[in-house]
């Protein structure tokens, strides 16, 4: 599945979860998947949904325009952490401020992966403090905000539960929903898939807390 991704990549787990949830909810025929560039774009030839590849950081703008005209469709805004919190943070903040009907999935691996692993605002070490979206948008009147990790079976189950909740809220209540997924990038961590996943459990989840931050 999703053959262009590296072995152990979190994007694969994320997309498989989305595929399962869309199938379970029987909404494939009204799903639109809007993807950011870089490693996200590696998915576009494989997905079974009508899909859009957007300019870097602009997914939430494109989906805002789309959703305004086709309110019955389920429009997923799928992006990495560079798009969501660096080049696209303005769009993110204003989409949350407006409480747009948005179903946002952020794949957070702390790096600009496609270009070779340069540090993103989410990166953490002694000199980089990271970037926590819950500190930025929790006070807006948004619908749902949660974080999970794509690191092992148990965490992936939690991720599925959060994403599924976000879908339900989006379809029933509307408003801005975001699920961030801590996601291994073994290639740029220079670790095996197993060690990359362990690193997320042992180090990343200590800083980036798993849980639901807003559930309105």
């Amino acid at each position, binding site marked *: 599945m999703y053959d262009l991704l590296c072995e152990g990549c979190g994007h694969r787990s994320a997309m498989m979860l989305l595929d399962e949830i869309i199938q379970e909810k029987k909404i494939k025929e009204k799903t639109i998947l809007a993807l950011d560039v870089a490693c996200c774009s590696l998915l576009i030839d494989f997905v079974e949904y*009508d899909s859009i590849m957007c300019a870097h950081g602009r997914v939430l703008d494109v989906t805002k325009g789309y959703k305004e005209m086709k309110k019955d469709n389920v429009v997923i805004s799928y992006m990495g952490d560079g798009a969501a919190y660096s080049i696209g943070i*303005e769009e993110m903040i204003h989409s949350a401020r407006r409480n747009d009907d948005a179903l946002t999935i952020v794949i957070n691996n702390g790096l600009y992966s496609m270009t070779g692993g340069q540090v993103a605002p989410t990166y953490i070490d002694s000199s980089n403090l990271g970037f926590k979206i819950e500190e930025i948008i929790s006070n807006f009147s948004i619908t749902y905000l949660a974080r999970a990790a794509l690191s092992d079976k148990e965490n992936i189950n939690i991720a599925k539960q959060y994403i599924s909740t976000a879908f339900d809220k989006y379809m029933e209540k509307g408003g801005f929903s975001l699920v961030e997924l801590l996601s291994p990038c073994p290639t740029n961590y220079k670790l095996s898939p197993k060690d990359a996943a362990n690193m997320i459990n042992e180090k990343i989840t200590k800083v980036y807390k798993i849980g639901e931050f807003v559930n309105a």
Partner: protein
Amino acid sequence: MKRLLNGNEAFAYGAIVAGANFYAGYPITPSTDVYEFFENNGEKYHVKFVHASSEVSAVNMIMGASIAGARALTATSGCGFSLMQEAISYMAADFVPCVILNVMREGAGLGDIPRSQGDYNQMTKGGGNGDYHSIVLACKSIRDCINMPRIAFELSEKYRNPVIVTYDSDIAHTKESVEINISEIKNDTNELDWILNGNKTNNPKRIQNIYYHDKGYDNNLRNKYELIEKNEQRYEEYETSDAEIVLVAFSICGRICIDVIKKAREKGIKVGLIIPITLYPFPQNAFKKLNCCKKIIIVELNILKQMRCDVEYYTKQKYEYHSINSMSTCPTVLDILKYIEEMR
């Protein structure tokens, strides 16, 4: 009904009559009347209006709306137009239509807001990255501003390419009495075959400009621009068949030159005029019909003689070329007449 409208208001009415149903924008002078028009009247005319947080957001929102089948537009000026270039390049490459009004402002950088035509190169050559063009339509009157949105939407949907409508701030803020008929509004979303509405046939549609498997990308783009250049050149010509001197000018300069040729003819000087309506594709066919022309005068409002480069290129440098140009000081009819008389 007759209304007294400036160019920006006329453009907004024209867009409504053309079936526009989505507007996202960010205010910037001298295009702001269009933004305000849709902010205040969008609901009344069934045009969804969104306050975007920047021009970057605005143009990406119209891309999304267009992919949903909307007749989507925005209006901007100067640096705001610059901020839209990445998305324009995406839409050209993705085969997504949209209409963008660029009311040109003076100079580079922030510049200022007087009349100017300094965005000629940016609009016609690309402006964003890569191998593409926008179709560019220039208005020289308030009547043009009413009619151009319909032409712009039709061309953008026919070729699935962004269309830029442009004029300078003299046209934006001059008021003229024009006939409008807003009763014929039709603004449902399009259901063109490429529009995304969910995969209902096990054949997913993709709006993309990166292809890992399908290699038809370069040919598709090449064919699109060849067809546009062959089929869509538009221009107005005045008294060109026997003209020894031909003026070339667009927007406010074109408007002024219409009076120049009348006055010149009264004096027995054989002057003609070509007003490009499409700045891209450049209307080279207009020049193929010139029989007696020896000299061409390009009248334009930019210091780099931007349109002159195209005129010389497309006429294979076979005439004697002159420029009347400045950044934002419009020559009068008498200025141009005097130049013609001294030049002879």
